């Protein structure tokens, strides 16, 4: 028998009709995550063609992108400030009613960012195919699922047929051995990986992250790494499931229980790349060499150590234009840069352990005068946990705003935006021009770096706060 990669094993289990030279494979989708922004036009197509949702039981619907994070608007009866967002939310409610879908709605205690509540509820499981009209669907690959983002037309295909047409992608192994140093997180690691392979380094590929440094990561850390696979251009990122995965999942509402759980785990243990399985490409990194990282440009590949400087690339006009947008000069020290906004949140870094490390840095301290800090938990469940554990109190006493869950300032769709020209140290995933608001300047980093920088009011290496 030929040795197979993890990806190949999951792919083969889901082929309904094999691919030929004329037609792509028909691939079965186990779990379809749906939200308010990329689904309305798909429901319209179903309506126009008189189609039903084939498997409502495999469709998990929530709202996160355009939802308010202001408590008064979510729970206090205040109107949603952004009328177009309110309309989009109402449209999703109507669509779910009409098509018989359960909706985890605005005031539901299970609501949150779609890529956070999938794992949190146990809907995300090893070996599944998972899609969503959102590029950060790659997050779920942390469980050994094949998970990738799709467009709205494909959202319609999955609603109607539970399948997609797919050509088999290539595979890229990213081997990370060694140990991450104290104060260096999964976010720093994935930023270092993107810096190494580039924002198009994964195009056409499914990444498998492997090696001792990946195995040592918690599920939260693995999700952070897989989440940003798309920032390297890859459709998906995967980590082989192991005891860390099973311990995380056991007992969650949507996982099998009792004997069925034992059978599931026995099956999942087979979901690893066989010894000698061939990848189309392999890239190796030493975890011990990774430092706290921060982006300085307008794509996530423009990244340097927090202790470093903006690189110099004479003659590169695109690079120069990017630095001009960012208001940074080649050779400038990054740790001197003043920040006006700090955002801890997003599907990359809004899980409980992210909030825990931010709270550890902020405990007994206050954020610098003139800095606005927004802490937006990834889900309502994480919000409750952070309140019980006292993290929320730390944030509030430090002078930060403690919000309801949602995508919030990662993309500013709900009105949580960064003013033009302001620097925002953000734990999110994209530093594109205007991503957090027209003219906003985003510096991507870890929750620890974000919290340390909020205290100082300028970009700060978190290690001095974590020792």
């Amino acid at each position, binding site marked *: 028998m030929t040795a197979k990669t993890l990806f190949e094993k999951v792919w083969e289990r889901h082929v309904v009709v094999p691919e030929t030279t004329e037609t792509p494979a028909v691939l079965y989708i186990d779990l379809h995550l749906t939200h308010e922004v990329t689904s309305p036009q798909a429901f319209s197509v179903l309506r126009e063609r008189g189609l039903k949702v084939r498997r409502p039981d495999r469709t998990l619907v929530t709202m996160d992108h355009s939802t308010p994070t202001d408590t008064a608007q979510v729970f206090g009866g205040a109107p949603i400030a952004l009328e177009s967002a309110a309309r989009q939310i109402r449209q999703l409610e109507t669509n779910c009613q009409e098509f018989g879908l359960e909706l985890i709605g605005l005031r539901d205690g299970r609501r949150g960012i779609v890529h956070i509540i999938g794992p949190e509820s146990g809907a995300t499981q090893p070996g599944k195919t998972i899609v969503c*009209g959102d590029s950060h669907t790659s997050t779920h690959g942390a469980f050994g699922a094949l998970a990738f983002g799709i*467009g709205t037309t494909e959202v319609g295909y999955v609603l109607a047929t539970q399948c997609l047409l797919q050509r088999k992608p290539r595979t890229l192994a990213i081997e990370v051995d060694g140990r991450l140093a104290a104060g260096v997180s999964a976010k720093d690691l994935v930023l270092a990986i993107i810096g190494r392979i580039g924002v198009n380094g994964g195009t056409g590929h499914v990444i498998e992250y492997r090696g001792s440094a990946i195995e040592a990561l918690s599920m939260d850390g693995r999700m952070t790494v897989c989440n940003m696979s798309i920032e390297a251009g890859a459709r998906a990122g995967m980590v082989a499931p192991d005891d860390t995965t099973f311990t995380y999942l056991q007992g969650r509402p949507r996982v099998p229980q009792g004997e069925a759980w034992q059978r599931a785990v026995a099956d999942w243990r087979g979901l690893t790349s066989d010894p000698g399985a061939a990848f189309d490409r392999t890239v190796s990194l030493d975890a011990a060499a990774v430092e706290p990282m921060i982006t300085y440009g307008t794509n996530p590949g423009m990244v340097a150590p927090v202790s470093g400087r903006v690189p110099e690339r004479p003659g590169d006009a695109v690079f120069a234009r990017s630095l001009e947008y960012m208001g940074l000069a080649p050779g400038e020290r990054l740790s001197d840069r003043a920040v006006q906004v700090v955002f801890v949140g997003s599907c990359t870094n809004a899980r409980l352990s992210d909030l825990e490390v931010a709270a550890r840095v902020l405990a007994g301290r206050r954020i610098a005068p003139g800095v606005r800090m927004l802490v937006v938990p990834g889900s309502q469940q994480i919000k409750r946990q952070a309140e019980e554990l006292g993290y929320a109190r730390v944030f509030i006493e430090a002078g930060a705003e403690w919000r309801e869950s949602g995508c919030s300032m990662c993309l500013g769709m709900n009105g949580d935006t960064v003013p033009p020209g302001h620097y925002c140290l953000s734990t999110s995933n994209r530093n594109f021009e205007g991503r957090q608001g027209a003219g906003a300047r985003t510096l991507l980093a870890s929750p620890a770096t974000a919290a340390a920088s909020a205290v100082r009011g300028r970009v700060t290496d978190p290690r001095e706060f974590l020792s």
Partner: protein
Amino acid sequence: MEPITHIRSRTVVLPSDNIDTDQIIPARFLTTTTREGLGAALFADWRYGPDGAPRSDFVLNRPEARGCAILVAGRNIGCGSSREHAPWALLDHGFRAVISTEIADIFRSNSLKNGLLPVVVDEATHRWLVANPGAEVEVDLPSATVRLPDGRAVPYPIESFARYCLMNGVDELGYLLSQADAIDAYERRLA
């Protein structure tokens, strides 16, 4: 969808690498629930000043860009978000093809499903196109080639089934629905 065989047009050139979908259409325009009318938001932050007035130095605002259906862009156009609003906005503005040396996966897939041709050419051809904005070129679908003004036909890769759908004006949903028996059988095996 209208069947597509070829697109003949002058080009508009945006030479930057890594033009992400947040540039093609910023997130604040995504609270729409339809796919119509997004052309006005295309490249909004590059195209308009803070006061909403068109920037005269942006290529799409120049008189010679009017009526151009082919966009030549730098490497890795369409990276980032999966928003299909990006090809919808490009199509609504009047573009029918995007030429680059590399096109991001999800954007390419979304473009094919809406009749916006994603065309990947070699470096030398791309350099020529970037150096000659406004050149009259033809993107031919049956032969999967780009015809340059000097008569050269440069091949580009396109997935065979997507090409079939585009040339016949059909979408993949009909094909997927026709596989219902196979999908039923697969689901019975799962149960």
